[in-house]
């Protein structure tokens, strides 16, 4: 089977599972949970590109997830409040007489939608330009990303009057005119998320198989060598970082109608690390590894923390350590391992010949 045929088949299978099987088999509650997991999967696809292929350990994707999420939530809160009115929490805290100027543009749906993707990309571009040109990499880059996530949370909590503080933006009721309490509309949100995930997987596959994708791997493995070939590795990394940020932003934006809330607790250091754990567990360098890992880890979190509250954190940590130590390629590499085992097992299999050889050798 040629890779292209296999990709189409995989894509078709994914579409059947997401669009037919899941809605038919899952209750509304479980389906809305799946919608949430698929949002994490979208973030994971971007991390797979930036980290798995580009070697950029993006430990702060929560920042971009949050930017997208808040941009979307701000629009939906303004739409809920109605023309000229302020969102409920601003009236509640009562510190403001009128809508802050930086909220105003988000009343426009086109601006808000564009911002969910472009704002994270712009921030990633600015940060990446500074950082990659100065050749900050490895652990330093990871720590910097973490610090940014922490800073964003502190900023959001500190500005309670305009950001909702620790609570975040909650009680989102409508989604571009659709009532989110209606299960039919929740289902529609799920379908949008599933469609976006499939589209982004197709885009990422194209990127990975393009010349750029090959160059990105080359930069990951030997940045200096790439430089001596006349490329500026900073630009190569920047593209992957910005694309990953855009995906995280879009995921954050879709998370808001699926779950109905965005808050600092959902975008800080811990969620940022959880994004990466999912990718590591699934397999960072494969296309589907991050998706499966993100969904599996998020699902396990729900399932296990329902039954064993308190122990989940340890389980998650143990899972991460086990995968990193014993299966660096993640769950996605299991398939290859099994295949290689089986292939390795075949050659010694013809037992008829071996004794002959042994006999000859003995004779």
């Amino acid at each position, binding site marked *: 089977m040629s890779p292209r045929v296999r990709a189409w088949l995989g894509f078709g299978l994914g579409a059947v599972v997401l669009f037919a099987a899941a809605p038919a088999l899952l209750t509304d509650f479980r389906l809305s949970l799946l919608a949430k997991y698929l949002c994490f999967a979208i973030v994971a696809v971007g991390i797979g590109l930036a980290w798995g292929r580009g070697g950029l350990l993006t430990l702060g994707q929560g920042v971009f997830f949050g930017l997208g999420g808040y941009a979307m939530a701000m629009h939906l809160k303004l739409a809920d409040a109605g023309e000229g009115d302020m969102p409920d929490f601003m009236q509640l805290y009562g510190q403001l007489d009128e809508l802050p100027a930086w909220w105003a543009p988000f009343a426009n749906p086109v601006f808000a939608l564009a911002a969910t993707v472009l704002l994270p990309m712009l921030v990633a571009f600015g940060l990446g330009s500074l950082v990659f040109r100065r050749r900050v990499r490895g652990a330093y880059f990871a720590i910097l990303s973490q610090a940014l996530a922490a800073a964003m949370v502190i900023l959001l909590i500190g500005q309670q009057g305009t950001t909702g503080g620790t609570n975040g933006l909650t009680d989102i009721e409508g989604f571009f005119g659709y009532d989110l309490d209606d299960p039919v509309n929740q289902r529609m949100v799920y379908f949008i998320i599933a469609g976006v995930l499939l589209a982004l997987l197709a885009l990422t596959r194209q990127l990975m198989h393009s010349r750029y994708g090959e160059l990105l791997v080359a930069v990951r493995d*030997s940045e200096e060598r790439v430089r001596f070939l006349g490329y500026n590795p900073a630009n190569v990394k920047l593209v992957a970082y910005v694309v990953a940020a855009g995906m995280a932003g879009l995921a954050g934006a879709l998370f808001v109608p699926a779950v109905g809330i965005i808050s600092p607790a959902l975008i800080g250091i811990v969620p940022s690390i959880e994004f990466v754990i999912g990718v590591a567990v699934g397999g960072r360098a494969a296309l589907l590894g991050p998706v499966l890992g993100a969904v599996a880890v998020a699902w396990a979190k729900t399932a296990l923390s329902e039954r064993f509250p308190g122990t989940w954190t340890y389980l998650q940590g143990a899972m991460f350590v086990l995968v990193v130590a014993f299966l660096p390629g993640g769950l996605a590499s299991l398939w290859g391992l099994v295949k290689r085992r089986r292939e390795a097992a075949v050659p010694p299999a013809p037992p008829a010949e071996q004794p002959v050889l042994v006999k000859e050798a003995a004779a």
Partner: protein
Amino acid sequence: MSETAGGLRIRGLRVAFDGFVAVDGVDLDVAPGDIRFLIGPNGAGKTTLVDAVTGLVKATGSALFGEQELLGREVHRIARLGVGRTFQTAALFEELTVLQNLDIAAGAGRSPWAMLRRRGAVPDDVAYTLETIGLADRRDALAGTLAHGQKQWLEIGMLLVQNARLLLLDEPVAGMSHEEREATGELLGKVAGERTVVVIEHDMDFLRRFARTVTVLHAGKVLSEGTVAQVQADPKVQEVYLGHASDEPVAQGAEA
């Protein structure tokens, strides 16, 4: 910028690391199309000189390639001027195939649009180079699985498709078998002419067979320069290499 080979003209090149002077006022001229060997004891500053010319370390003085000053430019800009180098240990993209390695080396000038698409056919220069370096039948092998000699040839091939017109090779035959050395030497003979080649090498046999001119560095300075025979006959060189006093009569220098 002309497409013909340019010469390398270095004046007063000086590299210092925290007070230690690794290259101390080197003047060096390599004519277009030459195969120049740089030799010298460990610590003579050979690799540092190449590092300085390719922008890896900061240096003062001047290094002209053709008309272009190289010092003070960024590494990738120097590479785009047509200066290519290899490293003592082969630095390939081991998880990519031979073809992908070459294709990346050939592509620094590609448009963003071309980058975002899949490679269609094998580019002509890549196909031609695959033949030149004798790796056409290993095209789809991962670079990490190549034999030692093949890795070095792939490195040289990457410089060719990169369209480097000044090739700086750091110990290209270290660790190679005799046959591999011969093949590498012939490859260098083939690619020189329209390109200028500078080779750092310790192997004296290889040098005698393939060098056209030789520069001997010692303690960051040029000790001697000329043809192989001239350099070997130079008492100063013998002193550095053999520890003989320069006034000692040495006649065997003429043997080569």
